[in-house]
């Protein structure tokens, strides 16, 4: 997760914080130790200086054993509370002067132990002649004074440690808040994406539903009309046939003979026809001819109307089909000459028939559908091109769902052209009946809608994929006819 990866470098690290605090404490301790040491050295230097001053002043008093004068000099040092004891010895190791505070031990004239930093001894010299020695002993500092001396550093260290700790805590709180914010932002983004995907899907579903409802409505309407219309056409057709039969049975010569027979009965010669009779017969025949012609036109129109209603019925999935198990590749191979004849020399047909599966469909309708699609493809390529007829297996399952199809095995037929293509608006209306982009009189607008109805009736799916300038792919997916269903039909 990127959030985790990002979080690391800025994250709160307790180890680092502990290290920093430890370093701080160490530095504080070092500073205290240094202060202690330098304080001691300084103190000792002061002691030595005091001793030297005393030694320099008191030489004559030592030399001439003037205790009063020596004691006067020594008493001057008494004012310094840091001094515990002072002693002045002459050459003969006799104390000439000195003082000691209450409770402190006397100073013996016997050198110093090296570790005793409280006490210093300096020789009293006059010129090059040593006349005696001066001892000074510092008072031990009270604990409270010593503590007060280092309290500054200790206080600073404690403050720094406290600040660091506060910083660390604040940092950790911030980091936690930051992480939770990030998590929430990620969740929100996720939810948003899910929502938009769902919305898109919903829009698509709604569009499909609308399309299917539209097709359903048109189908029902046109199917109902076509059905009734077909019945009416059948009646008209039958009646026309009857009229024609009637007309043909009562033919003109019989009619003329009847009028001649009437005239024989009236006593006229029946052997020869009069010129007037001949003219009457000719007129009669011409009239009959015209009527027949009109009848034929009417019958032709009825035929055409019946064909139209048939196709409407086909779109409305109400046409009678005779489904049978067949292999589309075989079917298409058998149609090759027909297809190539239909598209002409300017267009090449590329067959990619890779499926051997059988489907259950009406062979005639299938043929007409393929022909229709190929012709459409040719029409989309006025300057020639290539049409590919692709046939392959398709499996619809959870991993590869196709909307509107239940899971299972299918055969997919695609007719692909690299022609002009169509806009999204046209693509959406392409299956509508009577929708055509061809000039008036050239197309009926029923080709694709017929295919749509037929495929739907065969439990398959038809769809169009197209973009302007990139050509069009019409896809027909039909369910694979399993052995059982095939045998049932057989």
């Amino acid at each position, binding site marked *: 997760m990127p959030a985790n990866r990002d979080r690391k470098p800025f994250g709160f690290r307790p180890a680092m914080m502990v290290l920093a605090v430890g370093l701080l404490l160490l530095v504080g301790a070092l500073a205290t130790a240094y202060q202690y040491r330098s304080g001691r050295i300084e103190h000792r230097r002061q002691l030595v200086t005091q001793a030297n001053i005393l030694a320099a*002043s008191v*030489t*004559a*008093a030592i*030399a*001439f*054993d*003037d*205790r*009063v*004068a020596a004691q006067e000099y020594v008493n001057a040092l008494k004012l310094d509370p840091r001094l515990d004891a002072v002693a002045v010895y*002459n*050459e*003969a*190791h*006799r104390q000439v002067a000195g003082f000691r505070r209450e409770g402190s031990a006397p100073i013996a004239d016997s050198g110093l132990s090296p570790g005793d930093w409280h006490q210093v001894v300096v020789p009293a010299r*006059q*010129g*090059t*002649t040593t*006349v005696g020695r001066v001892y000074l002993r510092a008072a031990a500092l009270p604990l409270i004074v010593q503590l007060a001396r280092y309290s500054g550093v200790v206080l600073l260290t404690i403050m720094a440690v406290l600040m660091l700790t506060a910083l660390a805590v604040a940092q950790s709180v911030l980091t936690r808040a930051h992480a939770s914010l990030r998590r929430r932002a990620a969740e929100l983004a996720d939810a948003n994406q899910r929502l938009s995907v769902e919305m898109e899907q919903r829009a698509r579903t709604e569009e499909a539903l609308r399309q299917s409802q539209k097709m359903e409505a048109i189908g029902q309407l046109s199917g109902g009309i076509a059905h009734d219309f077909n019945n009416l056409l059948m009646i008209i057709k039958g009646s026309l046939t009857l009229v024609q039969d009637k007309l043909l049975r009562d033919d003109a010569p019989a009619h003329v003979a009847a009028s001649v027979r009437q005239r024989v009965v009236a006593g006229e010669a029946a052997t020869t026809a009069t010129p007037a009779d001949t003219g009457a017969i000719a007129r009669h025949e011409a009239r009959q001819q015209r009527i027949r012609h009109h009848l034929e036109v009417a019958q032709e129109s009825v035929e055409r109307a019946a064909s139209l209603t048939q196709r409407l019925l086909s779109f409305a999935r109400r046409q009678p089909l005779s489904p049978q198990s067949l292999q589309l590749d075989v079917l298409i191979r058998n149609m090759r000459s027909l297809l190539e004849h239909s598209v002409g020399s300017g267009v090449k047909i590329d067959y990619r028939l890779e499926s051997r599966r059988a489907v259950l469909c009406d062979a005639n309708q299938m043929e007409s559908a393929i022909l229709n699609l190929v012709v459409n493809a040719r029409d989309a390529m006025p300057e020639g091109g290539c049409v590919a007829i692709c046939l392959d297996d398709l499996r619809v399952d959870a991993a590869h769902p196709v909307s509107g199809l239940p899971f299972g095995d299918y055969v997919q037929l695609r007719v692909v052209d690299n022609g002009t293509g169509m806009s999204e608006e046209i693509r959406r209306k392409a299956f509508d009946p009577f929708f055509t982009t061809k000039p008036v009189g050239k197309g009926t607008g029923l080709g694709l809608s017929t295919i749509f109805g037929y495929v739907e009736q065969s439990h398959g799916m038809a769809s169009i994929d197209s973009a302007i300038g990139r050509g069009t792919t019409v896809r027909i997916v039909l369910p694979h006819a399993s052995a059982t269903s095939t045998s049932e039909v057989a």
Partner: protein
Amino acid sequence: MAGLLVVGLACAIGAAAVHAAQAKSPSPVSLEYAVKATYLYKFAPFVTWPPGEFASTNAPFTICVVGNNPFDGYLERAVAGRGFGGHPFSVRRLMSLTPDAHCQIAFLAQLPAQDIRQALAAVSGQPVLTVVDSATPDREGIVQFVIRQGRVGFEINVGAASRNHLAISSKLLSLALAVRDPSCRRTGTASRSGSVPP
């Protein structure tokens, strides 16, 4: 009186000095002169002789005892092994002080052959620290031993010292019972009385 003085002096001088005196001296010298002998060589560090006083760096520092010798060999024993800045002390006995005596310190006691004044005049202008015994007081000497309240003390004549081209340390002056400077007509009297030994 003399007995009292001796007792007082015995208390005043260092026990070690007494020990030394007793140990080193078969014929005991009086404590007063033992102290005076000690003082004699102890003056040296507090006095500055003019440069060139000594012929070499290890030339002896001569203490001349002029006239009768009251120390009876104590002084020689006391200075034995001591020196002043590399110059070992040596003691000379003179009957009279002459300008060519070559003394750094001249102690003048009872002079059989010479008047004290004459002796002082003989070395006047020469770098000689003249010390006059308390028994024969003369204010023209640079240092004058005095006995006060049972203690050996001394007075210093700064004028005489400067005549003899000697500088005397103020530390020594501060210990003097009196400091005189006749050239300034200023007579410092004893600023402080000698203390009674405990």
